[in-house]
């Protein structure tokens, strides 16, 4: 497990010093995170990495996971899709069931926590307990809020405004609210299995295991099998490129326990792939981080052709590895990529195919995009910046002024 000091060679000594200065002001405070899944998906991933570092800095950082059955997660999945702007009507009975499950989970809350840090909509109704418990409450939204369906937004807004503060990942997700809103972009951990440096032997070994030919260009999209990630669109873009350039496509990802649609999407992907031996559809089990890291490092181009996106951490992961990335201009992706400078932003399958061809034919330009992208991630999207933002968030709950002398 990494210690905060381990990041000094990457983020700089002064960055670690500043984190310690902030953490001193929060020593002894208990912060309890609550979300809906312990494995899979970006939220669980970042909590697994961040909590030990917050503890290392002297905070009591805890994590609780609410329990729900298939029916509950079916409802929250619909809610998730509605927030992404997809038509997914949720009836009154389902909303009542959602609230009931939240109430049943109220015992997950640590009564002595100073700050309750609730992630995403699934456990949002736990805030009902604020009236009796008091404490400071934060709602952290990790998902794309650009075009939420009105009925679901109205339902959630009623809960959001009971919190002390709401946190969003991108400016476009901000809405007029009666509570304070803070921008905190997610981050990647440069020392995690998913992002750490790997030897060529290891990368080659993973490619051999999956029968990927390193002698021909490799285009990769890493994401769970969700239609919002448009894996079918990726295959169509690849087919357009393949008419002119010999290449391979890797679609790799896993599934989260709160994502019942994954298998259905996987079937559609296999259908679209039509047994093309150069398309590698890899449904990876949890704990495949080194394999994902290796696949990204073995790639010539990394794609993230999402239709909707929360932040799109896979983009930051690929850029950190110095890879040229072609991604949709949705959610938090434009924050990570300045078009034609630190990557390529596209809006269609055809545009994606066009840029794949351009970058495969101009490897020097592709390399420059990758190295600029790595710099941008280093300064703005590593876990040390994220920890700093969380420490400031916790401190800000106790301060009212715009300029605070600590």
């Amino acid at each position, binding site marked *: 497990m990494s210690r905060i000091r381990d990041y000094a060679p990457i983020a700089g000594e002064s960055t670690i010093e500043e984190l310690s200065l902030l953490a001193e002001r929060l020593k002894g405070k208990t912060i309890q995170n609550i979300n809906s899944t312990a494995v899979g998906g970006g939220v669980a991933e970042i909590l697994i990495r961040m909590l030990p570092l917050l503890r290392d800095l002297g905070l009591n950082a805890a994590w609780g996971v609410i329990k729900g059955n298939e029916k509950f997660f079916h409802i929250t999945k619909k809610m998730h899709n509605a927030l992404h702007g997809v038509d997914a009507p949720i009836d009154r009975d389902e909303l009542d069931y959602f609230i009931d499950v939240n109430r049943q989970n109220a015992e997950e809350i640590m009564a002595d926590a100073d700050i309750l840090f609730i992630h995403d909509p699934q456990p949002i109704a736990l805030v009902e307990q604020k009236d009796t418990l008091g404490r400071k409450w934060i709602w952290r939204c990790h998902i794309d809020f650009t075009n939420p369906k009105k009925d679901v937004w109205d339902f959630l807004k009623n809960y959001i405004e009971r919190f002390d503060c709401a946190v969003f990942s991108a400016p476009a*997700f901000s809405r007029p609210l009666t509570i304070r809103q*803070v921008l905190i972009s997610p981050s990647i951990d440069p020392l995690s299995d998913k992002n750490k440096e790997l030897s060529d032997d290891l990368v080659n070994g993973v490619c051999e295991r999956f029968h990927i030919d390193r002698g021909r260009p490799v285009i990769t999209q890493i994401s769970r099998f969700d239609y919002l990630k448009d894996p079918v669109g990726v295959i169509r873009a690849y087919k357009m490129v393949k008419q002119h350039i010999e290449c391979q496509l890797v679609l790799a990802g896993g599934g989260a326990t709160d994502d019942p649609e994954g298998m259905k999407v996987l079937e559609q992907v296999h259908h679209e792939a039509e047994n093309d031996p150069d398309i590698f559809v890899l449904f990876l089990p949890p704990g495949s981080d080194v394999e994902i890291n290796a696949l990204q490092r073995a790639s010539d181009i990394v794609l993230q052709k999402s239709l909707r996106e929360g932040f799109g951490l896979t983009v930051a992961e690929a850029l950190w590895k110095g890879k040229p990335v072609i991604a949709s201009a949705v959610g938090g992706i434009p924050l990570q990529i300045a078009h034609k400078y630190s990557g390529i932003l596209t809006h269609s399958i055809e545009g994606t195919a066009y840029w794949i061809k351009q970058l495969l034919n101009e490897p020097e330009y592709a390399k420059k995009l990758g190295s600029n992208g790595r710099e941008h991630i280093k*300064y703005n999207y590593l876990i040390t910046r994220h920890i700093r933002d969380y420490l400031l968030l916790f401190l800000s709950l106790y301060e009212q002024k*715009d300029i605070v002398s600590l």
Partner: protein
Amino acid sequence: MTTTFRFLTRLNQVELLGRQAKNIPELLEGLRLVPGTSIYYHTHRFLQQHHYLSPEPPNDFAFWVTNALGLDTLGEELASVDTVSFHTIRDLRTRYLEILESYSQGRKARNGDCPEGQEFHFMSCRTFILPTPYEARNLKEFRDILEKISINSIYFHIFEARLRLERGANDFSKWLEGIGETQLAREISRLDPYTITLEGLRRDLIQRVSRYVENS
């Protein structure tokens, strides 16, 4: 004036105001209504997020007007506002309002919307100021600390102290003046820190101070 310079650092929390603009009239309205901290944030964000880039992108207003609305001339006018010549956020806001009002009232004004998804989102910031363990009692110590101190500390003493805290001059020049290094203080005051990267500014400061250390 104390002869010891205590280095402070500052860290910003970014706040979202829930207000957006999709055209010039909405940008103008937002600029009139948002708190001063929002004007400060949008005119200084680029310095911090892209401090490794040279040349740096201009302020957020100029960048948006140019890239989302395609108004190059207006964008250039907004980008060329000489931030270093303003001593208060109030005056800085007035300057941006004058430019936009003048544009809006002109015969060639284009008030159309930006493409969907490229709206301007007003943000703001809350600033936390912290003491660092570093103190300088003379020029040499000052130079040595400049080499290792967080870039956020340099940012605070040069930008934040002067404009946001309305101290009139940057903290370094004030201290240097106090210890009799009037010439060096003036040199640093005359710098336009908005046209170099923060790391470039650090290098420049170290070079200037080093010259005086060698001559002392």
